[in-house]
C-alpha cells in the first residue's frame, strides 16, 4: 500500500524567541524541507505614519525613536536630514560631527545586539553576554549625553538637544581602546567557531542580482558582494571627510552571500565605525549646537525623499509638506520591512533549523517593519 503524503503547515511565532519580536512565519514543509515561508507581519502596527500627520514636525522625532528601537539615533538622524532638506537649513559643523559620532556608536551598539542574539539563536550563549557588556558602555555614553539609554530624542531639526558631556571624548576614547581587543575575542569565540560555521556557511545564499531586485540594502546587500553604502555612494552629513572602507562579502567560509557572510560583514563594519569615530573625535570643531534650530518649523510646500545608511540598510523618509506646521504625509522606507520580504526565497530547500539561522542573519527589528 502506498503511503499518502501531503505538505504540512507549521506556524513559527508570533511568540517565539528567535523571531526577534512578534512575527509569525508560516512554514510550508515537505517533511523537514522548507517548500515556502510566508511571513505574517503587523502585530506591532501602531499607525506611526498616520499619527505623524497630527503632530508638528519636531513632535515626530520621539516617534521615530520607536521604529527601529535598536538604532534610535539613526532614525532621528534620517528624519532631521529630511526636514532640513525640505526647509533648506544649513547645520553647524560641530552638530554634523556629533551626529556622525552618535550614529556610528549606535551602529556598533545595534550590530552588537544583532551578533549576540544571532549567536544565542544558534546555541552559543556566551558571546551574547560579551556583546551586551560592550553595548552597555555605548548606552552609558548616550546616557551621559542626553539622559536616555534607548529612546533619545537627541537629534533635533537643525541641531541637537544637548552638547557633548565634558567627559564624553575621554570615555569614548577609552571605549574604543578597550573594544578593539574585544572584537578579536568575539571572532575567536564565535566567528571562527567550527560549529557556528557549519550552521551558517552555505546556508541561505543570496545572489547579488536577486538582492538588488528585492531592494535589499545595508550589510545584507554588501554580504552579497555589492559595494553599495550610502555613506559613500550618496554622501550625507560630513561622511565625505572620513577615510573608511566598505567591507563586502567574499564567501570566505562558504559561498558569497550566505549567512556567515552576512554575519561577518557586521563584525568588519564595527571596525570601520571605530575608525570613523576616531577621526571624528580628532577633527571635531568647536561651536554652537543650537544656532540653526528653527523657532517655528513650517516647511514650504513640496515633497522630499531623504535617506541614510541605517545599521540595517537604507532608511528613507518620504515627506510631503502642504506648507502647514504638520506633515501632510510621512512614509518611512524601513530597511527591515524590505529585507524581510526575501525570507521565502532564501529558505526554500533548507531544513527547519536553518530558518532560525537565516532569519537571524537578516537582522530585523519588528518595530520598524510594522511601524
Amino acid at each position, binding site marked *: 500500500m502506498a503511503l499518502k503524503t501531503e505538505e504540512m503547515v507549521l506556524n513559527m511565532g508570533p511568540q517565539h524567541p528567535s523571531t526577534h519580536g512578534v512575527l509569525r512565519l508560516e512554514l510550508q514543509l515537505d517533511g523537514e524541507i522548507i517548500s515556502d515561508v510566508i511571513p505574517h507581519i*503587523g502585530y506591532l502596527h501602531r499607525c506611526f505614519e498616520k499619527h505623524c500627520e497630527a503632530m508638528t514636525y519636531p513632535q515626530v522625532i520621539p516617534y521615530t525613536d520607536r521604529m527601529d528601537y535598536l538604532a534610535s539615533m539613526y532614525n532621528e538622524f534620517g528624519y532631521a536630514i529630511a526636514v532640513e532638506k525640505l526647509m533648506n537649513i544649513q547645520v553647524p559643523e560641530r552638530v554634523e560631527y556629533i551626529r556622525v559620532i552618535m550614529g556610528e556608536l549606535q551602529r556598533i551598539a545595534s550590530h552588537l545586539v544583532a551578533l549576540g542574539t544571532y549567536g544565542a539563536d544558534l546555541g552559543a550563549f556566551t558571546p551574547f553576554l560579551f556583546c551586551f557588556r560592550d553595548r552597555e558602555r555605548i548606552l552609558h555614553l548616550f546616557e551621559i549625553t542626553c539622559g536616555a539609554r534607548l529612546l533619545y530624542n537627541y537629534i533635533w531639526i537643525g541641531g541637537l538637544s544637548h552638547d557633548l558631556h565634558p567627559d564624553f571624548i575621554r570615555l569614548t576614547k577609552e571605549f574604543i581602546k578597550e573594544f578593539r581587543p574585544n572584537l578579536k575575542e568575539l571572532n575567536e569565540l564565535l566567528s571562527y567557531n567550527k560549529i557556528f560555521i557549519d550552521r551558517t556557511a552555505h546556508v541561505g545564499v543570496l545572489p547579488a542580482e536577486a538582492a538588488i531586485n528585492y*531592494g535589499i540594502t545595508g550589510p545584507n546587500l554588501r554580504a552579497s558582494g555589492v559595494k553599495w553604502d550610502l555613506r559613500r555612494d550618496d554622501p550625507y552629513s560630513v561622511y565625505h571627510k572620513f577615510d573608511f572602507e566598505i567591507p563586502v562579502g567574499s564567501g570566505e567560509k562558504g559561498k558569497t552571500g550566505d549567512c556567515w557572510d552576512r554575519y561577518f560583514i557586521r563584525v568588519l563594519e564595527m571596525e570601520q565605525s571605530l575608525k570613523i569615530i576616531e577621526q571624528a573625535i580628532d577633527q571635531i570643531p568647536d561651536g554652537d549646537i543650537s544656532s540653526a534650530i528653527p523657532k517655528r518649523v513650517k516647511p514650504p510646500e513640496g515633497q522630499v*525623499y531623504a535617506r541614510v545608511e541605517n545599521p540595517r540598510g537604507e532608511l*528613507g523618509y518620504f515627506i510631503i509638506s502642504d506648507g502647514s506646521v504638520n506633515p501632510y504625509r510621512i*512614509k518611512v*522606507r524601513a530597511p527591515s520591512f*524590505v529585507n524581510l*520580504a526575501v525570507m521565502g526565497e532564501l529558505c526554500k530547500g533548507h531544513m527547519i533549523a536553518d530558518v532560525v539561522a537565516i532569519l537571524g542573519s537578516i537582522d530585523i527589528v519588528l518595530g520598524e517593519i510594522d511601524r
Partner: protein
Amino acid sequence: MKTAEEIFNLLKEKFSGSVTEFKTDKPVEPFIIINPLEIDKVCRFLYENSALTFDSLVNLSGVDDANGEKTKDQSGFDIIKGGTLSVWYHLESIKFRHKLVLKTSTDREKPEVASVSEIWNCANWHEREAFDLYGIIFLNHPDLRRILMPYDWETG
C-alpha cells in the same frame, strides 16, 4: 548618468500618451507624472533599457491627495468623495547611479494602478501596504492581501 529631464524627454518620445508632465516648480526633487494604467510599461522600459537600467525600486508610497468634495459625518469625521489617490515611485540605478521620481494619480472612486511587482520583487510588499492603508488596487499583483492590518479588517 542621466538627469531627470533627459529621462523625461526619452520617455516622452517613447510613451507620448502616458507620460504627461515634468514637474520642477515647488518640490525639492523634480518628478514625472505618468498614467496609472501604463506605469508598468514605462517602468519595464526604465528597467530594461541598457542606458537607463533602473535596477532598484527604492520606495513606493501611496498618498491620499484629499482633493475631493469634503463633508462631515455624524461623529465629525471627514468624508471625501471624488478626487484622486496617488502613488509615488522612487527609482535608482545602482549601475549608473542616477535617480528618478515618478508619480501617478488615480481616481478615488475606482483606484486602479498597474502593478510593477513583476519588474521589481520588492514592489510586492510596498504595493500590499499601499493597498492595505489606502485601498489602491494594483492590477495584476500576484498576492494582493492586507499586510499591516489584520486580514479580516473591514473596508471603510
